[in-house]
């Protein structure tokens, strides 16, 4: 056990020593891995934040029910009674046209559309019910909307979260695209790391031949190269996290300004430990696999005579 551990410690020491001698090329390889790992990470972060946002919107499962402009208060009362009976509805409230008109005018005075609103001579707004459904299920919401739409005196029923749902299905598509991009980049990384390790094997050909001659097992020869691949992967993964953090930092400066305009405290999250962990683990595994594939082939190809 101690011997086994010792062998690995020796291998890591050897690799770090070699990397120390070739700082620039080690840095370059790690940078390539960092950039390649960073791209899917960036996409993921974007999609992740948008889908959180759209989920948040979908939670507000409000249906707006606009009555016909000429609907009498009796019709409104009838509809209110129907809504009260409907078991799918959690709560509702009526905003009648006068109330809505007053609110609009009040809002207009405090903003720039004052003149446009004051030009209106007559109230253009209908009575409206704002309804909170019990269920957040898209299908049952859709059914409720249709049911409400069918009631007499109703001009239009609008599901407020409809656009958010469309966005979220678009985002699901986006997630799939990320998966493709990530797999392609992983494949490219395998080749890049494999090639790098192969070049190193060629420069260490003498050492491999001598080691074979004095009785080194394949695993003894292979171990340092596997560690090299894993260390490149580790450095690349950490580099990718660094780049992602930089991007978040730069974006947040403009995103906070934007979200302040919308009275939201939305900003990109700094810390996404599961994403970071996934990036590092993936790149270490890719590093190991890439070097394993090329070192096994290369060692078999080196003839000791």
């Amino acid at each position, binding site marked *: 056990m101690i*011997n*086994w551990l*010792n*062998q690995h410690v*020796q291998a890591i020491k050897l690799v770090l020593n070699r990397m120390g001698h070739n700082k620039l090329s080690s840095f370059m390889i790690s940078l390539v891995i960092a950039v390649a790992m960073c791209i899917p990470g960036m996409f993921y972060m974007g999609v992740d934040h948008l889908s959180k946002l759209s989920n948040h919107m979908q939670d507000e499962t409000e249906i707006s029910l606009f009555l016909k402009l000429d609907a009498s208060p009796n019709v409104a009362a009838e509809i209110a009674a129907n809504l009260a009976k409907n078991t799918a509805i959690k709560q509702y409230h009526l905003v009648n046209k006068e109330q809505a008109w007053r609110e609009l005018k009040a809002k207009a005075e405090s903003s720039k559309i004052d003149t446009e609103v004051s030009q209106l001579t007559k109230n253009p707004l209908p009575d409206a019910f704002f309804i909170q459904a019990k269920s957040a299920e898209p299908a049952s919401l859709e059914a409720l909307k249709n049911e409400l739409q069918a009631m007499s005196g109703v001009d239009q029923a609008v599901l407020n979260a409809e656009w958010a749902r469309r966005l979220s299905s678009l985002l699901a598509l986006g997630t799939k695209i990320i998966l493709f991009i990530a797999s392609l980049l992983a494949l490219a990384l395998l080749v890049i790391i494999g090639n790098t390790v192969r070049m190193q094997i060629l420069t260490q050909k*003498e*050492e491999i*031949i*001598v*080691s*074979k*001659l*004095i*009785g*080194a*097992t*394949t695993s*003894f020869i292979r171990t340092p190269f596997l560690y090299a691949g894993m260390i490149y992967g580790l450095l690349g993964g950490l580099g990718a996290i660094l780049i992602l953090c930089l991007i978040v930092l730069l974006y947040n400066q403009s995103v906070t300004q934007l979200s302040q305009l919308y009275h939201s405290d939305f900003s990109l999250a700094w810390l996404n430990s599961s994403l970071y962990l996934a990036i590092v683990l993936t790149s270490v595994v890719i590093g190991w696999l890439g070097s394993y594939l090329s070192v096994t082939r290369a060692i078999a190809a080196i003839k*000791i*005579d």
Partner: protein
Amino acid sequence: MIKFDHVTKRYPGSDEALSQVSFTIEAGELVFVTGHSGAGKSTLLKLIAAIERPTSGTVLIANQNISQLRPNAIPYMRRRFGLIFQDHKLLYDRNCFENVILPLHINDITGLDAAKRVRAALDKVGLLHKEKAMPITLSGGEQQRLAIARAVVSRPSILIADEPTGNLDSSYAADIMGIFQAFHQVGVTVIVATHDALGMSTDHNRVLHLDHGQLKPTEFIQNGHSNV
């Protein structure tokens, strides 16, 4: 210890490098393999060290048939040998100490114990004061002695040297041969291939003389002269 039975080795696209060679080397012997260049000396040593496999016939090392060894058993077989080459095969990217410690690392020996053994091996070949030197700064004779230190550091029971004195002048060559004699005297089996049988030894030593891949009747060298 080492037994060749009707061993023939043919490389693809060439004549037989060895044909129908049979001999036995007992533990603790000092044997010289002689013959003109191209007579098959290196092939013979490579067969012993499990670097090559015979085309036909059997090579037994410590009662194990080389041809039937599984590939992953070969490294362990090779650890019985200390190999010394004409071109030293030293690693020029590390110092003398690190060159000699390599076989110990392969045998999972590290730390103080390894360092002690490396210094003992360097001391035996008279290079203890050069442990931090890079091999490229050593003379030809010193490089060959360093290669011997590397070959003996893991205390192999068989020492195999292919033309160890090939590029050395005679005083260095005698120096190297003295080292081999010393190992022979402490019970190590030593096999030395050389095209230059003279000036090698003053003792009675066994000689395997090869001529165009065939083993000629065994001779003894006495007082530096062949008694054919």
